[in-house]
């Protein structure tokens, strides 16, 4: 009985799937899928070669500091870092006094309430504050950016596939002239005014104007030559840190855990051999 019902149910599913399959094939033949500009002209990210990548990856503190400088001088005009506090910068090798000074000198102040009048007001940042958003709210952010919202960058390196390399490629090498071939093949995909062609952005047209436009845009405190490529790499290193500040602790703990477990496996294997030595199995 079970088998009869089962074969009927099975036949029903197979039949309906057969219908669906037939539909897929006839649709495919009568209406072959068209190529899209994104599909053909989108590029996979370049390798930023960050030292934090890989099993034993560690942050290059000087590079991350340079990246912070790029964020501070360029990206922070539009992007917030709402999960990162000023005091977290001590992890990058800044001392307490430096962090205090950075917080105090930050261009955007923290919103607060005037304790005497109760009116909305601002105050200078202190180390325990999160990096403030340059805009009062999303509406203000959109209004200032051609109706696009500059996303918070704290987690950006984890919120895109191959995030660190993606950020590097997007801001360092993405802004090129729209290929003539694209416009010829897909006239409808011409970059609209107000958007910018970027070969690494998912739909090829991004609202962010090129943030890194010329060598020397930032004057690095450590004297490194600030080429566009270098600044893009550095800011990608910084954003890798903001997304995963505990990366080094994780790698170190992982190394210990793996060594311990390998030893454990050998010991367990020895015990197993010992227990079973007299028994054929």
């Amino acid at each position: 009985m079970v088998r009869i019902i089962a074969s009927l149910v099975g036949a029903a599913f197979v039949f309906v799937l057969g219908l669906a399959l037939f539909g897929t094939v006839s649709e495919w033949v009568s209406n072959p899928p068209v190529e899209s500009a994104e599909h053909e002209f989108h590029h996979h990210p370049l390798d930023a070669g960050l030292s934090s990548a890989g099993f034993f990856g560690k942050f290059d503190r000087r590079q991350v500091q340079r990246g912070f400088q790029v964020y501070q001088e360029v990206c922070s005009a539009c992007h917030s870092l709402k999960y990162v506090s000023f005091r977290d910068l001590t992890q990058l090798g800044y001392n307490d006094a430096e962090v205090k000074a950075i917080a105090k000198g930050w261009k955007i102040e923290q919103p607060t309430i005037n304790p005497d009048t109760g009116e909305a007001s601002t105050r200078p940042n202190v180390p325990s504050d999160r990096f403030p958003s340059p805009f009062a709210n999303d509406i203000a952010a959109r209004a200032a950016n051609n109706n696009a919202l500059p996303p918070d960058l704290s987690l950006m390196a984890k919120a895109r596939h191959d995030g660190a390399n993606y950020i590097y490629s997007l801001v360092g090498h993405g802004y090129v002239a729209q290929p003539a071939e694209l416009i010829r093949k897909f006239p409808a995909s011409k970059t609209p005014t107000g958007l910018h062609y970027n070969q690494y952005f998912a739909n090829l047209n991004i609202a962010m104007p090129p943030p890194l436009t010329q060598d020397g845009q930032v004057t690095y405190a450590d004297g490194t030559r600030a080429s566009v490529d270098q600044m893009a790499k550095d800011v990608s290193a910084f954003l890798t840190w903001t997304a995963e500040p505990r990366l080094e602790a994780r790698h170190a703990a992982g190394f210990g855990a793996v060594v311990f477990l390998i030893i454990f496996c050998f010991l367990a294997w020895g015990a197993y051999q010992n227990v079973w030595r007299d028994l054929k199995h």
Partner: protein
Amino acid sequence: MSFPWAKHYQPKQPLMRWLDEKLPLPRLVYNAVGAGYPVPRNLNYFWNFGVLAGAALGIQIITGIVLAMHYAANAGVAFGSIESIMRDVNAGWFLRYAHANGASMFLLVVYIHIGRGLYYGSYKAPREMVWLLGVVIFLLMMATAFMGYVLPWGQMSFWGAQVITGFFSAIPLVGDTIRVWLLGGFAPDNAALNRFFSLHYLLPFVIAGVIVLHIWALHIPGSNNPTGVEVKGEQDTVPFHPYYTAKDAVGLGVFMLVFALLLFFSPNLLGHPDNYIEANPLSTPAHIVPEWYFLPFYAILKSFTANFILDAKLWGVLAMFGSILLLFFLPWLDSSPVRSANFRPLYRKFLGVLLLDVLVLGYVGGAEPSPGVILLGQIASIYYFAHFLIILPIVARSERPRPLPNSITEAVLEKHAGLGPTKSAMAN
């Protein structure tokens, strides 16, 4: 206690004797996973996976309880609370990555455990109840994992919840009402998040309870083994402890090693980047996909693209649930008296195809839809249902099994002599 020759618990220490009289808990443990449980002597490493699943559940419960101390189930702050676990809570990154990857390890181990059951015919008499309870555990795990994935309230959390609860609206007439009732609103929101958290906390303990029943039911006939031949006498078995505790320790070590590599060196490998973007009901991700362990079922769902009497969507939902529920009937679909696929050449081939088929379905479930991918998914779905509901019952009756060994011990000794039927088998 399954066999007459099982060892008896005889506490020597006065304190243990006293305890045994008042509350024989050590006796229970002794009989369940100690020297009092006789187990076939020829189990291979596939028999480690039950213990590993138990370990994985333990890890989920411990890491989950500590996470819950820091997590805030409120749509406004849930995402931020996960970030502060990752950044500010002591070893919070470890807890959270252990829990998220622990769920993957748990499902991986359970899939292998189920596959073992399929290959060695462990679902057949006299172990049907063990199998049925196992399928119940699997369903509970899927519900738990789904609701857990909603908790961080990222984009995939939100849109996954939207898609999955959307299944209920495929039910004719009352579907939408049921969906709104389940969610506590028209879309996943605070009410949904709160109840998901409540249930996500509850279900693992329900799972633990069903596992007790699962093991209880197992101990009545005792464990199956790679030959599928029943235990005939004392020479066929060894006490669980120390023989299989020692072997399970090896398995546990390897399991933890794989887990550690994933957790410490590639903790986001199996996750989706979109879940690091906070939930936004106004922005639909380009490509909504569930966690890897649901992909084959998701592919089945999406393969039903034609209306026939019922709506295509309803067919898809029925088929998706059906693809799991049919496992409940497996003991009666497969009437072959031979358990182990080692002795069932034809069944073994079809099982190989099924494994491949499920992997293809997994690929299809995660791939960007294109006509080729959809077609592949439809072919693979056809095989999935045909395998269990049509092919399997026929094979069971028509195939001629290879000769079985007379006993486990005979099979073991023959293997060591280098001849005999188990030589080519995959048993160790």
